[in-house]
């Protein structure tokens, strides 16, 4: 299972990287989305996928899955939600203001001298 997950995560990172290297703003943002998906799955995998039940305490169950990675992921999800929303609105505003969604057209080297 971990092997499978590691590969899935690898592929998610791969796709994310590919998207982030493209020119279109939307594709780049989608890339960051995949990136955080990959990262979240990775936390879960790294906590160990050993069997066990849902971490809701009850008297019947003896073993639970590791709850800590879940808590971390939850925090990470919320944070990346915040960042993604901000990024989306920023992209929207930039499009309005700059009239392009091509990152390569946003080099802005004219002020670099």
């Amino acid at each position: 299972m971990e092997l499978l997950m590691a590969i899935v995560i690898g592929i998610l990172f791969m796709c994310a990287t590919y998207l982030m290297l493209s020119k279109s703003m939307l594709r780049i943002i989608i890339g960051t989305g995949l990136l955080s998906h990959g990262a979240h799955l990775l936390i879960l995998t790294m906590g160990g996928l050993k069997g066990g039940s849902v971490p809701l305490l009850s008297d019947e169950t003896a073993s639970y899955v590791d709850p800590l990675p879940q808590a971390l992921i939850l925090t990470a999800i919320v944070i990346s939600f915040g960042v993604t929303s901000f990024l989306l609105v920023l992209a929207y505003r930039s499009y309005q203001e700059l009239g392009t969604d091509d990152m390569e057209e946003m080099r802005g080297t004219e002020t670099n001298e």
Partner: protein
Amino acid sequence: MNNLTFLPVLWPLFTGILLIFIAKRIKLQRWVSLFSSLIGIVLSMYLVFSVHSQGILTLGVGSWEAPFGIVIVADMLASLLVLTTNIIGLAILLYSFHSIGIERERHYYYPVFQFLLIGVNGAFLTGDLFNLFVFFEVMLMASYVLLVLGGTKIQLRESLKYIIVNVLSSSFFVIMVAYLYSVLGTLNMAQISQRIAEVNQPAILSVIAIGFLIVFGLKGAIFPLFQWLPGSYYAPPIPVMALFGALLTKVGIYSIFRTYTLMFYHDQGYTHTFLAWLALLTILIGVIGAIAYWDIKKIIIYNIIIAVGVIIFGISVMNEQALSGSILYLIHDMLIKAALFLLIGIMIKLCGSDDLRQMGGLIKQYPALAWTFFIAAISLAGIPPFSGFAGKLLILQGAGESGNFLGMAIVLLSSLMVLYSVMKIFMYGFWGTPKAGYRSAAVPVNKMLIPAVILVAISVLFGVATEFMYPFISQAVETLLNPDIYIKAVLKE
């Protein structure tokens, strides 16, 4: 248990919240921010002296003791940096009153300013790796907002790049934490250190160490991860730029301090050598940038990169002298960079341009500005007795003692180039004949100069009275060199 430890974070949090409620009343916002900043300085001073007299202070938040709950750890290094941050915060705040503009003030500039301080102070104080990530995000989110606030074209454009690079670096942060958790099963820095020491840092941990270097290196703008910095720092208004230049990269550096002295110090032959090379390349690239441009903002921005390289080089040398030097230099650089940004801000406002070739002759009408800049400039270049010197001297001595003569040579030569670059500003900005009329009427030069003068004065004092600072510095270094002190304080063993 010591709740004082966390007050430098909690205090700006409450201030920020309060400021949200009074967002429409600008005068009141200013007064509240100012008052809060002053209290913040008092609090952090008290923290520094408490740590000095009692040793490392810790706080298990929520009564959960380390390593299970989040623990806040104020050691000397963190406390000193918190104090410096608050001082810089106050100065930049004062400067903002006269330069940030009423529109930005109305749109949550002050609350977000406080939130940035939360992130920075929190990152210094936390003893938990994942919590560090959270504070990084607070700091970053605040920086995104400050960067884009105003919504001019260049701000929008550069914010996009800045945010995307940082999202990437945050993802790297998360995965490195995940890897580390897999190997060590904990998130508490002290316990991480303890556990790494127990297994003597096997190969996989060296890999993770390099991974963390990428994460923090991106924040700290080391070579070759620095490219995002010049553009993004260039875009926002001066106070924000000063805030970024003085604080943000330093949080990255602080994290490298923590990870490379507290946790991954068992394979120095590999990790620290790697760090040393990157540091020297960082210095070189910073130097190249600093002499390439005629744009004063760019010149100072690239000087940030040089300083990052110098400090990191000190960390990589990892002996007592070099580490003391790095800490001294870090604090010095925070103060003086903030001051320099504020000063060039005035110059730019006066001349209406940031191109040196369009400037000149400022010294005649504004001698105070000129001489403040001059002192700041030579402090930056490390001319004794000003603040940059003692740190640089110790780094050089440390490097010499560990036999890294190439590093010594590069650091020495970089000082010359730093001097060259800032004296270029002095010579073309202040000397010579005025190119065009100044907009004196629109710029309250003296009011804007006060915060810069405060910073420069503190930095001069910091340099001349190094002896007074030294006990604090050596206490900080003692902890860095003996992780056991930190571990014992946190895990109470």
